[in-house]
């Protein structure tokens, strides 16, 4: 049973993790919508320091409204960005007024 289902509103945490992470700066703290569950994968944060024994983590694809990622730019309302986020970087979204 995964923590999130397709369609769930989620927010990307701004984990202050040092070392190798695969969650880009531009998407941290933003809210989006889960579009796909990708399965479980070994955590690159661990693999980068040679820890290969797991545990594997859930990976989701999350869609963001571009206009909300880049509020100072002029962007058509329907444009989106989809990116892969590991489970421990996600939390249920608090706000409900940003729908992709």
């Amino acid at each position, binding site marked *: 049973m995964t923590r999130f289902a397709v369609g769930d509103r989620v927010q990307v945490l701004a984990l202050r993790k040092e070392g190798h992470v695969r969650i880009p700066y*531009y998407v941290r703290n933003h809210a989006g919508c889960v579009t796909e569950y*990708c399965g479980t*994968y070994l955590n690159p944060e661990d693999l980068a320091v040679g820890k290969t024994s797991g545990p594997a983590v859930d*990976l989701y694809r999350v869609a963001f409204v571009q206009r909300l990622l880049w509020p100072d730019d002029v962007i*058509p309302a*329907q*444009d*989106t960005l*989809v990116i*892969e986020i590991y489970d421990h970087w996600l939390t249920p979204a608090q706000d409900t007024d940003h729908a992709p």
Partner: protein
Amino acid sequence: MPHDHEHGEHEALIIEDEAGNIDAQIVVDALQQVLIAKGLLTAHEVTAAIAKLESPGLHLGAKIIAKAWTDPEYKERLLADGRAAVQELDIPVTEARIIVVENTAQVHNLITCTLCSCYPRSILGQPPSWYISKAYRARSVREPRRVLEEFGLDLPHDMKLVVHDSNADMRYLVLPEPPLDFEIRAASDLEAMISRDHLIGVARDVA
């Protein structure tokens, strides 16, 4: 070691000059020699691995797309599980998963990897140099429409543009819309019309 690069407002790619390339060849040969001496690999393995790296390319991507256009059931399998569908064509895939994203009359897809250069290498080979450039990686997520204009593609304002940042374990291919006359064309003709730019998403119309 000296090498060419440009500074200024247009940050170009770092390109090794001849001395830089010779230096790099010496270093990688030295590394290989040390690793062989330690029994960690053999020269034969390296040669074979290089041959395997050289074999994928656009021709494999074009084969997948042309088949998807002409075989609707294959297309459904491709969209559902890209890796399995690609392997059906005897194309070995090393990436964990392949996600094929479909262009439609209302939607255009663009692929990028902002953190490094993730790309479906086992299918398409190495990415083009511009895909790895800082400029593409920085701008493809923030101003993709301007990026597409630089590639000669003006998207209609009401078309939806979806940018996919391949930051983790998925790798992506764009399935472009087929040309209008695809049903009367031979597979080899269709394959010849497909470019790498179509598969990344910086080109849209296949004609």
